[in-house]
C-alpha cells in the first residue's frame, strides 16, 4: 500500500480536524474509521449545543460533523471506512483490518490517535441484582433512538447526571417515555446548569443527589429497582432503600478513553485521565505518535476537541516532514497541586511563544484562586467565583517564563 505521511486513527471530530490540519501543512494523510461513516459520536447527538465557540453558532452534532466532512473532502486525505486499527507497534507500525484490503500493516511518517471513548457499563460499576433486559448505557440508548428509531423503554430511571444522562432524560421524554427520576452519587451534577434546567426542570423530572441504585429486579424484563442515599464514604444506607417501578435503566456513569490498541506501543498513559501523557504538541511518549480528542482526555465541548486536534494534526505533519520546531527548549513537567485533578499537556518545552494548559478541578470550589507556579514563582493567577469538575478550565502561559517544573493548583 502507498506510504502516507500521516495516519489518523478514528474519524470523529478529533480525527477529522487532525487530518485537515495535517493536510493543510502539506502532508499526505490516510484516515481509518471503523464505522460506515465519519462523524463519531456526533452522529447520534442530535440535540443543539455544538459549535458556539468554533463556528459562533449553535449547531446539532450531525451538523457540526458535516461541516468538517465537507472541509475534509477538499483536502489531500484518503478515507478508509469500515476499517479498524487493531494494534499500534513500538515503531508506530499499525495493523488495520479493512474490508477491501484485508489485514494491512501501515507505517506512516506519524500517527494521530483519535479513537474517542467508550462508556462504562453495568459490569464496570458492579451493579447488583438480576441481569434483565432493559439495562443500557446512555450512549447506546441514544444511538438506538436517534439513529435506529427504537425507544428502549417506557418507564425509565437514569443513573448519573453528567451531560449525557441529562440529555437522554430529555430525549426519552420528548419521544414519549416517562423518566421516573435521575439518581446521582455525588452531591452535585457534573452536567451544565443549562442541561439541569432544560432537560430536567422543564419536564418536572426529579433528581436525587447523593443517592445510588442498590439493586435491579425482574427477569427476563426489568421490573424495577431499589435506590438509597449514600453516606459520606459514598456507601449506600440500605435501611433507607426505596423501590421504583421501571422497565429501563440508563447508565451514564463515565467514559473510558479507548486506548486498548496501544498495549504493545510503549505509549505511556496517565493514571488519572487514562489517556496518553503528551507534550504541548500532543505528542505521546513515543516520538511520532500523537493523541487528541476524547481518547486523550474526556472533553465536554466538541469545540475544544477540534481545537486540540488541529494542534496534534499540524504537529504530526511537521514531524513526518522533518520540520518540527519549538521543541529545542528545556522540557518541563506540568503537575497539579491542591484542588486540581489533572492538567494537560503533562510536559511542555520552554522557549518562544505561549502554551495553553487545560485542567479540571477535583470538586466544586467557590471564591478560589487559580495559581500556576514554577520554582516558587507565580506565572499566572486569577480569582474565580466558581470552578467545577464538569467544566474544563484553561490558562495560558508564556513559554519563556518556564524554566522548571510547573504546578497548577487552587488557593481555597
Amino acid at each position, binding site marked *: 500500500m502507498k506510504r502516507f505521511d500521516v495516519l489518523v486513527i478514528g474519524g470523529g471530530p478529533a480525527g477529522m480536524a487532525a487530518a485537515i490540519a495535517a493536510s493543510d501543512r502539506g502532508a499526505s494523510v490516510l484516515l481509518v474509521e471503523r464505522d*460506515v*461513516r465519519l462523524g463519531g459520536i456526533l*452522529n447520534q447527538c*442530535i*440535540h*443543539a449545543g455544538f459549535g458556539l465557540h468554533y463556528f459562533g453558532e*449553535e449547531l*446539532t*452534532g*450531525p*451538523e457540526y460533523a*458535516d461541516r468538517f466532512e465537507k472541509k475534509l473532502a477538499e483536502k489531500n486525505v484518503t478515507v478508509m471506512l*469500515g476499517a479498524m486499527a487493531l494494534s499500534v507497534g513500538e515503531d508506530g507500525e499499525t495493523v488495520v483490518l479493512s474490508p477491501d484490503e484485508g489485514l494491512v500493516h501501515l507505517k506512516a511518517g506519524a500517527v494521530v490517535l483519535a479513537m474517542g471513548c467508550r462508556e462504562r457499563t453495568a459490569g464496570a460499576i458492579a451493579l447488583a441484582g438480576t441481569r434483565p433486559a432493559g439495562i443500557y448505557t446512555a450512549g447506546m440508548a441514544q444511538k438506538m*433512538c*436517534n*439513529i*435506529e*428509531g427504537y425507544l428502549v423503554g417506557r418507564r425509565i430511571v437514569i443513573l448519573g447526571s453528567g451531560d449525557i444522562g441529562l440529555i437522554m432524560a430529555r430525549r426519552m421524554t*420528548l*419521544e414519549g417515555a416517562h423518566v421516573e427520576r435521575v439518581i446521582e452519587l455525588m452531591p452535585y451534577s457534573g452536567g*451544565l*446548569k*443549562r442541561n*439541569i*434546567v*432544560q432537560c430536567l*426542570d*422543564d419536564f418536572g423530572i426529579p433528581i436525587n443527589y447523593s443517592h445510588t441504585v442498590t439493586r435491579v429486579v425482574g427477569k427476563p424484563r426489568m421490573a424495577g429497582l431499589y435506590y438509597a442515599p449514600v453516606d459520606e464514604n459514598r456507601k449506600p444506607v440500605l435501611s433507607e432503600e426505596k423501590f421504583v417501578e421501571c422497565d429501563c435503566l440508563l447508565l451514564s456513569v463515565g467514559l473510558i478513553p479507548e486506548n486498548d490498541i496501544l498495549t504493545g506501543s510503549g505509549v505511556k498513559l496517565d493514571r488519572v485521565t487514562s489517556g496518553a501523557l503528551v507534550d504541548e504538541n500532543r505528542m505521546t511518549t513515543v516520538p511520532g505518535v500523537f493523541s487528541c480528542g476524547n481518547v486523550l482526555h474526556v472533553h465536554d465541548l466538541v469545540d475544544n476537541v477540534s481545537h486540540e486536534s488541529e494542534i496534534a494534526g499540524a504537529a504530526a505533519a511537521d514531524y513526518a516532514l522533518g520540520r518540527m520546531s519549538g521543541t529545542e527548549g528545556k522540557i518541563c513537567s506540568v503537575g497539579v497541586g491542591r484542588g486540581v485533578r489533572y492538567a494537560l499537556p503533562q510536559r511542555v518545552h520552554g522557549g518562544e511563544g505561549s502554551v495553553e494548559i487545560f485542567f479540571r478541578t477535583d470538586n*466544586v470550589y467557590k471564591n478560589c484562586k487559580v495559581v500556576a507556579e514554577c520554582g516558587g514563582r507565580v506565572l499566572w493567577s486569577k480569582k474565580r*467565583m*466558581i*470552578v*467545577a469538575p*464538569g*467544566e474544563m478550565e484553561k490558562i495560558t502561559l508564556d513559554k519563556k517564563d518556564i524554566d522548571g517544573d510547573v504546578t497548577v493548583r487552587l488557593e481555597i
Partner: protein
Amino acid sequence: MNTICINCPMGCPLDITEEDGKVVVRGYTCKRGLEYGVSEYTAPVRTVTTLVRTSEGGVLPVKTSSPVPKGRMFDVLDRIRALVVPASADIGYVAEHDILGLGADIVVTGRGVPHDAK
C-alpha cells in the same frame, strides 16, 4: 416562579415575581442573571430537536430553525410525528415551513446511514 440561572456554573437561584406590573428578579449575582430571569418569566423559548419518519420507515434528525415557546413544545412534537420526509433528504431539507404558525421551520439536521451498510 423559581428557577436557576443557566449562564454559568454558579447557577444562582432566581426568584421571579411580578410587582405592580413589573417583573422583579431576586437572587442573581450579575446582569446576565437578571436578563435571563426576565426572559424566562415573560417569554421562555426552546429549540426542539427530535426525529422525523422517512418514506422508507427510517428516521432522520430534525430541529426547529428558531426557538419556539416552551409551552408549545409538545404541540410541535405532535405535529412533527405526522410528517414524512424522503429517505434521501439532506441536511437543510425543510420538512415543514412555519410550524403551527410559530415562525420556525422544521429542518433536517443529519443524513441516514448509507443503505448498503445496514
